């Protein structure tokens, strides 16, 4: 898995400052990248615009739409749709600091670009499993930083 990821390090640029393996082994509390969150907060330093809440809400809405799309794309073996979901989720998850999730998307997108079907099922299942973890982490983050 790592070998497959290495030829495309730039696809996951935002978290590239950190050791790549770190995010994968990180405990749940570290699901979200600190720096990415800092950048998000900088958009609304006083919190008066509730940017964080709105972003988290937008992410929830987005994955609420994307996961069913992903499921039906898998059922129909529609790689174009799978790729689109992965692409969209890749950048939005990076934006909210969910670097592991973002990397998973990168890998799926890369596999599709390479035309590689093998292992696609597990990858997509892993991605679907990561999403609730991220959502919980986000909720916790908001609760801790009102």
């Amino acid at each position: 898995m790592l070998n497959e990821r290495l030829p495309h390090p730039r696809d996951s640029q935002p978290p590239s400052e950190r050791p790549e393996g770190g995010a994968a082994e990180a405990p749940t509390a570290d699901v979200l990248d600190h720096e990415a969150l800092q950048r998000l907060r900088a958009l609304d330093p006083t919190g008066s615009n509730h940017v964080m809440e709105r972003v988290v809400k937008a992410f929830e809405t987005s994955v609420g739409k994307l996961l069913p799309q992903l499921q039906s794309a898998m059922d129909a073996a529609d790689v174009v749709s799978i790729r689109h979901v992965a692409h969209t989720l890749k950048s939005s998850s990076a934006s909210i600091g969910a670097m592991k999730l973002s990397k998973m998307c990168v890998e799926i997108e890369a596999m599709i670009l390479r035309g590689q079907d093998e292992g696609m099922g597990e990858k997509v299942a892993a991605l679907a499993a990561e999403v609730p973890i991220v959502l919980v982490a986000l909720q916790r983050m908001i609760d801790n930083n009102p």
Partner: protein
Amino acid sequence: MNDSPVSAGDELLAHPKVLLVDDDEVNLLLTSTALRERGFNITEVQSGEDAIEMLARWVPDVVVLDAMMPGLDGFETCRQLRSLPGLGALPVLMLTGLDDEASITRAYEAGATDFFVKSPQWSLLTGRLRHLLRSSRTRLELERSKSKLARAQDLARMGSFDWKRGHGGLHFSIEGLRVFGLGPDSVLTLRSTLRMIPPDDRHELLLVLHEILRQGSVLAIDVPITLHDNRHRIFHIEAEPEFNELGNVCGYTGVVQDVTDRRLAEDKIRHLANFDTLTGLPNRRQLLWRAERAVEFSRRIGHLMAMLLIDLDRFKMINDTLGHAAGDELLIEVSRRLRSCVRHCDHAMENSIEALGSHSHRTLEAVGRLGGDEFVALLPEVADEGDAERVANRILELMREPIFVGGQECFVTASVGIALYPRDGTSVADLVRNADVAMYFVKSEGRNDAALYHPQLSGVGKRRESLELESALHKALERNELVLHYQPKIDVRGARMVGAEALMRWQRNGVLVAPGDFIPLAEDTGLIIPMSEWAIREAARQSRIWRDNIGFTGSIAVNLPSRLFERIDLVEQIHKACALYGVPHNAIELEITETGLMKDLQHVIPSLHRLNEIGVEISIDDFGTGYSSLAYLTMLPISELKIDRSFVRDLGMTPQSSAVVTAIIALARSLGLRVIAEGVENLRQMDVLHRLGCGLMQGFLFSKALPPDDLEIWLQKTILPRKAAWIGEVGSGGVTGEEASVSEWRAARAKPLA
């Protein structure tokens, strides 16, 4: 021009309108939030379809497009956007998460202005957007100024061109081609351009071009061009050299401008300054300039030149009788004839003469109009005086042909004076003056001829003097230089002054000018009219003074030219003058010569009647010298006949003279007219006149014309003390004689006073 667009652009960039297109809500929210915080005005849509629909109604400053979208993706959206009207230059930034070459290439191919790899580092995006907006603004300004320049060049009929040495050749801008009347796709080579220039000018231009190219200097030249539609234009060409890195001229860039209209205007201005507007002939300025050049040439080369001064005879009369329009018409025709007498050249002008070579002075030859009816023919080179005389005779010959003006056939003759350089003068001023002297000599000899100047003519040449006199006379009135002197009319039996004749004198610079020296001039110039009007007022004023000072109630006679009797306001003028000084109308008597009266009889008679009606008496001056129709004489409302001095002079010496005088007295008596003799100088004349029955006289025997104050003194010293030699000679009858003569006079009045 350099600062304003940039600052104006920055102003506009303060809140640039951004259309943000992204299907992912998270990115849309984050990007828009980040951009809003940095001052952008964001409009969000979530699909390419929505973006296209929005752009049909509204145009942002920049579009930020996500490349990967379901439905219309970024590339296709961009492609469709570009095909919308007016959006060809709208900046579009493509956002891509795939930083592979293929996407970037696809983005550009779809018409994106730039691409940006998605990144949460918002300041990078802002920077990119600002750069994009600024360059788009700059490009817009450039487009605008380019079209402004094109328009300005179009208006100025101007265009640019460049020329590259070697293979590049000549290249004109679209505006440049338009100057030549060619479409934007035309090709205009150096060779075909040169072919549009007349051969002589082309040759000259090529010499100039080679020289300029050799020196690497600036070109600025006016060139005549014949366009393809055969229109003749003048193009101004200006070009600067361009240098290569070695410092050698590698080409020229410049502008070509159609300056025909400007040149025409300049030519017109120059023409107006140098040519007479009525006749189109060179005017005084141009003529004298040519004469100066001709004198210079003659001096240098050593040949003779001639100046002919041509003055029309009796032009004033034509002007007066047919009107100024006819006079102008006549001058135009005369000018046309004069031109045909010389090799008239219109083109010799300042600066152009030296370039024409050794015979260039011949182009100076011309006829010009000095002013009024005075012309000059300038002959820059003559072999001898015979040459000049031949031209003069040709002029006289042509003038003798009748000229039709104002629907009438007119005969105009001219007097020509000729002066030759160097014999008759070595300066233009001397030549003009001496030609003038010769011309005046012709006038005095009966006109319609030509004469060469000769020093002996100078004595005759009073013309200049009389011109000065004329202009001085114009001012005499306003300067109060005119005065009236009065000669008493004497009743010799009663030794009384019964009236006075007012005679005009001109006190010029303290010297009295003889009437014979200025009255004819006044009559010629028409000044006699205002002068006579003045005399009437002055006589009325004097009448007032004498009524008050010495109780004089007789009339003062004013001499009027017959012309003045034709003026319908004469009666009104006399009335005004008398009313002004509170004297009766009969304080003024008018004298008109017999000749003048008979000449204009038809026009004068109505006036005489009106004058008579208001009590103004009329006296016929110089009676016996003209050819009065006796039939008319009986009908005219006149009061007095004045026996001409010529008959009086011969009285007692020739029997004929007394016969004439006897006849006049008899005529006057039978018509009931008063009779008075003038020019009485001695007692013998007085005695004869008295015996023949004429008791009223004036002349040196009694008194010459005197200033009014002197006349009062004369009255006091001569008449009142009865001291003069003539008093008593005929007055032997004593006091009764005086009364008798007065009653005789009264009885003799043709009509009672009004």
